[in-house]
């Protein structure tokens, strides 16, 4: 008898034991004399259920999780026909409510296919987007991307079609496509999941971009903290090149396009587009003043499309299904879907792709299921380390660019980090300033010096020294950071600091807190 079993090779699934479960499956199948076809997929993104194993049962899959090696003999003893009776059976994966409620456009294949099988990729809709782009031609491809309403999903939210058109219309001897996979925001892992679970979607998206703007060379800049993602992207690029999907006649397009994987070296600021370009050029990752925009003068001084990985990976689906279908989703000027990433102290941590516009409370309480610790949710940081902290009172805020901005927050890269009632918001505010000091590239004064002075001032507040006067100093400093910094690192550090101050002022009254503790 032959068994087809799917076990994630996603780093987060491995982090909770997926390799041990896979090894146990192989050993037990060998012991029983079963022929096992083990496919290592990406993760579906339901991390509280990882390692989540899926078993092929005559045309549909059954999911089991969280699995341990000890659960393996019981599962294989039941076999595909009786596996439903296993205590860890979750039913068909698509019926699990966390997945069922999603609209998966970018993540449709993630966790389903063998990430390094081009056949599997094609069988699940891969390269249909490029085929349509080729039939449309470059100008109409860019128009289609514009019409979809797609905006940069890395955090800045700039209209993607406009960026592409600008690079295409700028005269140059060569142009570049750069994929920003320097996903440094705490609480975000969507880029990582896609690189490990569906790397060809990134390659196809970059190829479409390259042909549309007239670039024959692309770079993926991946942070060094993602060793698994680096490995899978490198392998995928090699496979794509060997099969002709990349190279002098990329995927039969008649145009040359190739991709090189580059690895960062532990600098958060290199997620900022101009410092990423400096880093790719082999320099210190220091921010450039804008203008000139990268679309005019980017990598090696040439017009460059630099997009976040999710933005590029979403393009094949937009082309394949048509811009209208994408634009029909979402709200206001935030069209399409966002990969919400639930993290931190949350019961159901995972990736939830959904049209823009869900209420924050719905995301945290209904989808996330509240805290993992079972204690009340006190604060939620949205949009990474430069994002604002939201109290429960603001849980009616909609998850889209404009609604979050209207509440003095940012969408960032879609991370939602949940904290329970034990969080000390004054310490979180201090961390934000200290992180800025730690990661500042040093180019502009407000960020380089302001972050250090801010941390020192916050230390005085934490010691209860002249709290009122020091808080006034912090507010003043945040104004300087916000309006005087060259990039979002210094410019957005005030979001976590000021939101902590505004929404949780009681945590900054250290004398009262100390008295209450006594």
């Amino acid at each position, binding site marked *: 008898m032959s068994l087809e079993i799917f076990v994630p090779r996603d*780093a*987060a699934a*491995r*982090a*909770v034991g997926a390799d041990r479960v896979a090894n146990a499956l192989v050993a037990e199948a060998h012991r029983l004399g079963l022929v096992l076809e083990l496919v290592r997929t990406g993760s579906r993104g339901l*991390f*509280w259920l*990882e390692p989540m194993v899926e078993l092929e049962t005559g045309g549909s899959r059954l999911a089991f999780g969280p699995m341990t090696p000890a659960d393996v003999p019981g599962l294989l003893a039941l076999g595909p026909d009786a596996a439903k009776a296993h205590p860890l059976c979750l039913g068909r994966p698509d019926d699990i409510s966390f997945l069922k409620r999603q609209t998966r456009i970018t993540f449709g294949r993630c966790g389903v296919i063998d990430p390094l099988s081009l056949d599997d990729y094609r069988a699940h809709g891969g390269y249909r987007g490029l085929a349509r782009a080729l039939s449309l031609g470059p100008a109409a491809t860019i128009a289609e991307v514009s019409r979809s309403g797609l905006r940069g999903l890395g955090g800045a939210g700039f209209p993607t079609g406009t960026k592409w058109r600008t690079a295409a219309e700028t005269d140059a001897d060569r142009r570049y496509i750069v994929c920003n996979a320097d*996903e440094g*925001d*705490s*609480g*975000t*892992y969507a*880029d*990582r999941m896609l690189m490990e679970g569906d790397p060809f979607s990134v390659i196809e998206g970059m190829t479409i971009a390259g042909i549309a703007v007239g670039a024959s060379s692309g770079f993926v800049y991946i942070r*060094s*903290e*993602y*060793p*698994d*993602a680096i490995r899978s992207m490198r392998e995928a690029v090699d496979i794509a090149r060997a099969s002709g999907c990349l190279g002098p006649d990329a995927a039969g397009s008649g145009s040359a396009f190739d991709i090189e994987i*580059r*690895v*960062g*070296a*532990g*600098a*958060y600021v290199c997620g900022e587009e101009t410092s990423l370009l400096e880093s*790719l*050029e*082999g*320099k*210190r*990752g*220091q921010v450039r003043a804008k203008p000139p925009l990268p679309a005019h003068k980017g990598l*090696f001084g040439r017009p460059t499309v630099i997009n976040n990985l999710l933005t590029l990976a979403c393009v094949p689906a937009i082309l394949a299904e048509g811009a209208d279908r994408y634009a029909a989703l979402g709200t206001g000027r935030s069209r399409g879907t966002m990969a919400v*990433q*639930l*993290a*931190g*102290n*949350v019961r159901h*941590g*995972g990736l939830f792709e959904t049209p823009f516009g869900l209420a924050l409370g719905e995301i945290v309480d209904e989808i996330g299921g509240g805290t*993992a610790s079972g204690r009340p949710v006190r604060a939620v*940081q949205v949009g990474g*380390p430069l994002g604002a902290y939201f109290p429960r009172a603001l849980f009616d805020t909609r998850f889209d660019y404009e609604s979050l901005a209207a509440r003095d927050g940012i969408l960032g890269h879609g*991370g939602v*980090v*949940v*904290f*329970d009632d034990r*969080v000390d918001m004054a310490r*979180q505010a201090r*961390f934000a300033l200290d*992180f800025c000091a*730690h*990661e500042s*590239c040093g180019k502009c004064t407000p960020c380089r010096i302001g972050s250090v002075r801010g941390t020192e001032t916050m230390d005085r507040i934490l010691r209860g020294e002249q709290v009122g006067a020091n808080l006034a100093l912090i507010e003043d400093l945040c104004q300087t950071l916000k309006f005087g910094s060259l990039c979002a690192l210094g410019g957005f550090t005030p979001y976590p600091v000021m939101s902590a101050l505004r929404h949780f002022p009681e945590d900054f009254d250290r004398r009262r807190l100390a008295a209450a503790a006594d």
Partner: protein
Amino acid sequence: MPVAWNEPQALQIIRRHAGREGALLPILHDLQAAFRCIPPPAVPFVAHALNLTRAEVHGVVSFYRDFREAPPGRHVLKLCRAEACQAMDGDRIARRILDRFGLDWGGTTPDGRLTVEAAYCLGLCACAPSGLLDEVPIGRLNEASPDELASEVGA
């Protein structure tokens, strides 16, 4: 486990990237993979090959946290200190792990067995607190982790 300086090997690594656009970071990564750090004697060769000054190369080496000027312990443990891990009591568990080995952040055990470093997000934020031991991901670190890590590195 320092790796002895080997000039021909370093030159071979540098030559492998000749003519590549923006070759400095790839060269430094490969040098570090071979020597476990950026050996100071390599800097002039890198500078010469890329038509840079030694100061420029040093400026890049010192800018990026990953590049080391001396080799680390035989095992390297990176522990995440960012917000998602903080929300899951990561600070306290990290302190337990450091105490188990008698280390502070960035330190190496006297027997050269282990270096523990801070990282700011490993993308394992739904399985916090998390770490990477010699590039192998570890999630949901807990009270048992200090001893488990100790047996893992043979301490």
